[in-house]
């Protein structure tokens, strides 16, 4: 039984397909990069897995249990970082602490775990700042911290480093890899930067116009893609 399974998921908006019959599975502890041009359905896929969107057909199974469709009870073990995360109008500390309060954790535990996250993401100096005054890179780190703080089994990230400066990108990549390796967190990360996919991923999924064109391990994906469209995409010949 695989950790996460997507079975022929389809979704359309206003009659236009965003996802067409997408099927794949990943094992626990995997780190999957989803790549593809703008509008290819990457965000839609992640939102369906997180239960924020309902697929028109197909199903998502987490550890063998169907989690798509009905009220989503398994969301507690999933963490998601949005493309442009929205933080709450309170301190950085509270933003991260909220995730634990929502889960009924106690004061002491909360303090300990949040401090850990602040250290991990190098946010200690910002703990008392109002989160709405942060720069893009800092905000992205807080969003990652509040998703990681409750130690999710599955972490979903939608372009977590788009438009960030190298310093922030490197912190985020480092934390991702560490929690994937050390905590065994399964990670799915969308990126438009194929170099980033190359650097991070164990497996890569390539979406094009809602279809899963290629799904293979990173080495094979970049060295010997099966599909000619994948080749033209990674060579930069595909206009996007």
């Amino acid at each position: 039984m695989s950790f996460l399974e997507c079975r022929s998921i389809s979704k359309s908006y206003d009659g236009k397909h965003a996802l067409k019959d997408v099927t794949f599975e990943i094992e626990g502890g995997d780190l999957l990069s989803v790549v593809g041009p703008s509008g290819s359905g990457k965000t839609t896929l992640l939102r369906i897995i997180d239960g924020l969107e309902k697929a028109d057909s197909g199903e998502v199974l987490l550890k063998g249990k169907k989690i798509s469709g009905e009220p989503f009870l398994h969301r507690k073990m999933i963490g998601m970082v949005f493309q442009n995360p929205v933080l709450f109008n309170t301190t950085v500390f509270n933003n991260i602490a909220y995730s634990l309060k929502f889960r009924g954790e106690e004061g002491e535990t909360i303090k300990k775990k949040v401090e850990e996250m602040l250290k991990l993401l190098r946010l200690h100096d910002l703990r008392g700042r109002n989160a709405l005054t942060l720069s893009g890179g800092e905000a992205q780190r807080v969003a990652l911290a509040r998703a990681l703080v409750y130690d999710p089994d599955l972490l979903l990230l939608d372009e977590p480093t788009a438009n960030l400066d190298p310093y922030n990108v490197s912190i985020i990549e480092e934390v991702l890899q560490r929690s994937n390796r050390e905590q065994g967190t399964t990670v799915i990360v969308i990126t438009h930067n194929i170099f980033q996919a190359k650097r991070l991923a164990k497996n890569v999924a390539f979406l094009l116009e809602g279809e899963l064109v290629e799904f293979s391990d990173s080495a094979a994906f970049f060295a010997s893609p099966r599909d000619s469209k994948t080749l033209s995409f990674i060579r930069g010949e595909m206009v996007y």
Partner: protein
Amino acid sequence: MDGFEVIAEGFARALQILLSGDQGILEITLLSLRVSLAATLLGAAFGIPIGFLVARKDFRGRSVVTTVINTLMGLPPVVVGLVVYLFLSVSGPLGFLRLLYTPEAMIIAQMILTFPVVCGITISSVLSLNPKLKETLVSLSAPPSWEARVLLNESKLGLITAIIAAFGAAISEVGAIMMVGGNLLGYTRALTTAIMLYTNMGEFATAIALGIILLLIAFGVNLFLTYLQMRSRVRRTT
């Protein structure tokens, strides 16, 4: 005596009256504050929860309800005064309560005026919250009670604005409280009704003194609002 002197003299005597701490003027001011504050708090006690529910729940006719509440914001005070009068008059349906010409009647009338203000501003400030906030809360598995708490906190500025705006409108209002309060000396005489009365009676010094107090309150309220809005305008660095 030339025209400006009349006014200057009025101001001078008004200042004297104010500085002497006239008992009657103090009473009138306190009544105004008490009535408007009570009306505002009651309006908020109904307006904020109802506004929050209207903004958060998806139900049929929601846009109609919103339009009705926004429209009620334009309710002319004299019409409210007339209707409350008809209800509270001894021969009216609620006459047995003997509330006409009491401060309570003034509170009721002004509450009808403050409710739509608070409710309408609450609706619009909750609606104007980033829709991604709600999604973020869902994604973080926030239970419903926390959801309401966080969202109300996010619209805090809007709620404070609503309350202050309502109070400012109430304290400046004259039509409704005149009609249902009756401007009884020492009992239902408020700043606005007293200013009208003293102006009519040619007691300009007293009218000006009361006008200065009313202005200070109305402007103080507005300045406080401006200050709050400026302070909470968090600068996003990106």
